[in-house]
């Protein structure tokens, strides 16, 4: 008996135990639901088969049905706008802020730290705050834009079909800005200073140094930020119930929220699972890019 415990403590037994615990956790709480989801997207799910694992197999019927839904293309279009709008906004502004705080001025590190507030806050709270800011009648954004002379009349951000998706994008950019800035700041800090000095002596001006030194040296960081940004944006959920609930008339609905609506508001679990599997394929694609970009580290 004591030999058994010794082996557990000193041999590979303990290592296997630790790895096994983590692996079990991952399989039970991520792997199994994922497989179940994929399985469900190929099954007929209704009131009578809810409680069983092996339901009637229907092949790609659910996929065909989802694509034939009248709102499918609208949701697809919205998802693309949401993903590219949020990502480009987060990335460009995040990079600009990272460059700004990479300059040496008093309080740079402290102020940069304060930006993390947006990252720490729950999405629902951020959604509530932006819901007030974007409010059509009393929102502060309208007041500012009107005083600057950019708009003449109030914009009803959340319920105007032309703006509703942008209302969520603006809030999402704010939510993801700090994360982008932080990762890009780390990437910037990892570039040796003497490279810039060498480039300066070689005759490069500030723009040329950014283009020929900063950007290529940040390649892997940028790849990581963009892939994580894509994953994070596709997973964004909290802002939708807090701001627009996908409306009006699905004009701000995206795949993730739609999947939730199908499953838990319409109780059409098969279609909900199907939409999420389609998204999963997209996220998997992004993950592969992410893993590849971190593998090709270019460091002296």
């Amino acid at each position: 008996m004591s030999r058994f415990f010794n082996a557990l403590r000193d041999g590979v037994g303990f290592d296997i135990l630790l790895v096994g615990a983590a692996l079990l956790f991952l399989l039970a709480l991520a792997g199994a639901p994922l497989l179940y989801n994929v399985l469900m997207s190929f099954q007929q799910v209704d009131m009578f088969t809810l409680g069983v694992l092996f339901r009637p197999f229907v092949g790609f019927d659910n996929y065909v049905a989802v694509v034939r839904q009248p709102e499918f293309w609208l949701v697809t279009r919205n998802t693309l706008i949401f993903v590219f709008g949020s990502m480009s906004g987060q990335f460009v502004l995040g990079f600009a802020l990272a460059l700004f705080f990479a300059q040496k001025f008093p309080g740079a590190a402290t102020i940069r730290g304060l930006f993390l507030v947006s990252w720490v806050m729950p999405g629902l709270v951020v959604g509530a705050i932006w819901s007030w800011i974007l409010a059509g009648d009393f929102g502060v954004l309208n007041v500012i834009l009107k005083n600057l002379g950019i708009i003449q009349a109030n914009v009803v951000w959340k319920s105007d079909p032309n703006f509703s998706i942008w209302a969520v994008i603006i809030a999402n950019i704010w939510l993801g800005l700090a994360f982008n800035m932080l990762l890009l700041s780390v990437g910037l800090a990892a570039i040796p200073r003497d490279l810039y000095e060498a480039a300066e002596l070689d005759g490069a001006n500030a723009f040329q140094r950014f283009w020929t030194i900063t950007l290529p040296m940040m390649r892997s960081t940028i790849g990581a930020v963009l892939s994580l940004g894509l994953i994070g944006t596709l997973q964004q959920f909290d802002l939708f119930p807090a701001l627009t609930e996908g409306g009006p008339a699905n004009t701000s609905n995206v795949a993730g929220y739609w999947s939730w609506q199908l499953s838990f508001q319409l109780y059409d679990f098969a279609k909900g699972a199907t939409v999420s599997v389609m998204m999963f394929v997209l996220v998997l694609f992004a993950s592969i890019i992410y893993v590849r970009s971190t593998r090709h580290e270019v460091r002296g």
Partner: protein
Amino acid sequence: MTAQIELRNIDKYYGSFRALKGVSLAIEKGTFVALVGPSGCGKSTLLRSIAGLETISSGEITIAGQPMTGVPPRRRDVAMVFQSYALYPHMTVEENLTYSLRLHGVGKVEARQKAGEVAATIGLSQLLGRYPRQLSGGQRQRVAMGRAIIRNPKAFLFDEPLSNLDAALRVQMRKEIRALHDRLGATSVYVTHDQIEAMTMADWVVVMRDGIIEQQGRPLDLYDQPVNRFVAGFIGSPAMNFLPATVTPDGKAMTLDGLGEGQIPLAVPAGPGRAVIAGMRPEHLRMAQGPASFHLEVGTIESTGSATYLASADGALQLVQSERAELKSGDRIGLEIDPARIHLFDPETSARI
């Protein structure tokens, strides 16, 4: 001869710390100047000030007659070789070499051709397609030099370029850098903490300490005529021995404290009874073959084959003998001291007497 680089009263403050204290220096065109001194003496700051990477607090810098104070580095037309080499890791050797040409709008074909020429001069022709991470330390060093050469700049600045190389390679690169300098007819400023590098490579050596120039001159002049105890101790390896000594009552000779009553005649008479510091290079002290007036007890003996390094038991004296010696720790030996090769320093001011 005109001064290619001229520095007048350069001051540099980091906060309240004064890194350079009114440094003035004129560097002739075509010379190889070494800035040497212990770490923190300001030599690198001075070099970076010439490059424009540090903004000086006051003073003036001219390069090839052009006032350069406040001019950004990219308009100074000087090239620098960094201690870390600072090669662009995401560019091949050829791209590293031609980076400055491309920035200045030189065409692809011409840049390629120039890179080929430079690579041939420094022995990199086979490596043009490689990335810096695929090169050895010595090869990276060459790329860094090639990157400087290709621009044909007004001056070359070297910031401890050899300190990351192993000893054998360092000796070889020392020769190569000097040969390159001669072939290009360039003006070079070379920062090092290694006085051997300074002595062997430079036409003109500038010894710095605490932000000031202690002494400048031709290498052997610094060796033969150090102006103070610091320069005397810094130049030469192993370092000069310093022994307190006392001038005899008649003022014509001195005795070495701790080495008995033996007298050493003085070339120039000094104040009777005055305390002085006698500086003697280890290679100028000889073991006496016959009777001697000075004796010491041998402490440690190190033989390298070509030379024997002896240290006295009390650690006060070191000597280098080119002959082998059958000695062991504790032996007493006689000492021959050549009066002409003794340097005298004032114990208060450390200045040469």
